[in-house]
């Protein structure tokens, strides 16, 4: 049973558009939600993260919107660039301390 779900599985946008990646979770005790990105043939790396006390976290072109009541969050990438093409993983940390990853969304930004 997947505790962290992501959609869509893959997404293609044109350069300059806003990409929206969705994530939902099951466990209301999750207390930390990082997004990792992974470029082809590279390892995942932390991109941006949010805690449930906030409903928005912004870092340049990347913004997380968080809805605690619905247990949903989304990553918005504005003015998408071809260099943003990667797989994006939503993750959640539970009270066991473990980070649980979703299956990822593969983003392709077409020039």
């Amino acid at each position: 049973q997947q505790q962290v779900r992501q959609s869509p599985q893959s997404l293609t946008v044109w350069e300059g558009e806003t990409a929206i990646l969705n994530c939902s979770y099951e466990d209301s005790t999750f207390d930390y939600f990082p997004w990792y990105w992974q470029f082809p043939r590279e390892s995942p790396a932390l991109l941006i993260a949010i805690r449930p006390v906030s409903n928005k976290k912004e870092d340049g072109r990347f913004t997380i919107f968080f809805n605690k009541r619905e247990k949903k969050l989304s990553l918005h990438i504005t003015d998408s660039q071809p260099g943003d093409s990667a797989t994006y993983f939503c993750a959640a940390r539970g009270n066991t301390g473990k980070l649980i990853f979703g299956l990822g969304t593969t983003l392709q930004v077409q020039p």
Partner: protein
Amino acid sequence: ETAVFQTPNYHVTQVGNEVSFNCKQTLGHDTMYWYKQDSKKLLKIMFSYNNKQLIVNETVPRRFSPQSSDKAHLNLRIKSVEPEDSAVYLCASSPDWGTAETLYFGSGTRLTVL
């Protein structure tokens, strides 16, 4: 700049063989992890050590065994590999277990079992 080092980068072996992967981190972190990333890119934690102590041991086959000599090193041994073990094995570290907020991943070891 790489601070979590894994060797080897690739390993091809046959069913039934034993393999060992090494991981070292130079970040001074207390906690290290092994994750398995399969062909569908699913990232799943296998083991976690905090200051040489095993604190997470997910349901993995017994042929997998982690080994930690000190908090900077965490190796993974697989006895008698199976085809389904083909995957990328990612080592990671974080400052400590209680605040595992940022994982720093190594470059991975890609295992192919023929």
